[in-house]
């Protein structure tokens, strides 16, 4: 008789939140609009992290960023790599980004576009490339990041699931 399959442990990541998971873990974030989910896997040690940030820059409120760095792109991505570095060396991370949707506002008020640019800038400054992305458009997205495989499953109401 086969042993019953164990369901992977799921951790929900809220808005302005950062969570880590080891092998077998699944990090989930719901209702991504203009926010960005940054999914990072360290293949050497099997740990992954998911950051769900809301705003492109912490410059508007440094005190707030100190209390909740994951609200912002710059402090959130720094915190993400800081936390992963506690688990092992940051070596060839696999990075995938999802989100950045828009309601059609002009560039300055298009939170999605500004958030996508902010993610790319922060990663580029660290010398990291984005391995895969599904960004912009006018759809909401729910993300399941499977740490064991590095797969990022994206679901949207009334649309087929996509995998990065």
């Amino acid at each position: 008789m086969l042993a019953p399959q164990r369901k992977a442990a799921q951790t929900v990541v809220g808005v302005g939140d950062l969570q880590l998971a080891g092998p077998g873990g699944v990090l989930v974030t719901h209702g991504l609009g203009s926010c960005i989910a940054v999914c990072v896997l360290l293949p050497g040690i099997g740990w992954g992290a998911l950051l769900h940030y809301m705003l492109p820059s912490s410059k508007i409120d440094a005190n707030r960023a100190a209390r909740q760095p994951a609200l912002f792109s710059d402090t959130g991505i720094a915190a993400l790599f800081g936390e992963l570095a506690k688990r092992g060396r940051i070596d060839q991370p696999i990075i995938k980004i999802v989100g950045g949707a828009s309601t059609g506002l002009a560039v300055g008020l298009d939170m999605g576009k500004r958030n996508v640019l902010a993610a790319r800038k922060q990663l580029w400054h660290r010398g990291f490339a984005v391995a895969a992305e599904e960004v912009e458009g006018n759809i909401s997205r729910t993300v399941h990041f499977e740490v064991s495989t590095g797969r990022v499953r994206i679901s949207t109401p009334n649309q087929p699931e996509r995998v990065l």
Partner: protein
Amino acid sequence: MSPPNVQSLVDGVAPPPVTLAPLSMVLADERPQAHRLEEVVRQDPGLMVRLLAVANSAAYGRGESITDVRRAIVRLGVREACKLAMALSSGFLADPLTLYGGTPWRSALYTAVVAEKVGRALNVRNVGSLYTAGLLCDVGKLAVEAAGRELAADPAVSSFLEIERSAVGADHAQLSAALLHKWGLPAELVDLVAHHHNPLKSKNPRACTALHLADAIVRQVVCEGDDALQYPVQRAVARGLGLKPDEIDRALLEANDFFQSIDEVM
């Protein structure tokens, strides 16, 4: 399609707390009066308890614990206390909407805060009404939900308003306005809410444009319902009316903090 029977649709929605309409009138005053606010809050013991909880919370509480509504209003400031009391009276928006997905709760609080901020930036008079309009502009979705007819997604349709009209004969903006009218809220608010997706038809297009823009900004960020990104933005408004990105970021941050302080005590 038969003509929309808006009245029968809104009759399917449970009445709100008795404090909602009087609070909206206190907040509509450019200088809300503390004694009027206190009178209204004292009508609802549940609201009183929740307002005291916010006044004593980490976000607002400084010094000794407060057990009296008058002192809570002093600590919070009259306008802020009034806005908090309105939000705390709108817990009926936290029920899940099965037809849309999610709940309108978070987006309602965000839109209220951002609408007030955008209104100030655009020199709109009486931003208190904009706060209330932002809070309640999607309440009509409760009437669509109560009708229980499926909202069939249609890729050929550019606006979710059309999907609502096909399903129940009226869109949520019309239904929100009918509900606010039924609940005795001021006519100015009814007009703003009725036209929040088509602001140039409002009797107060400047204020309604601020509401329309705030709604578009918030729907990007708070993307809970399947419909969140499916309403068009007026072309002239989409350019942002001179608002700066930092102003929007600050408004969203404030909305996030406001939501957290309310959600903690609900």
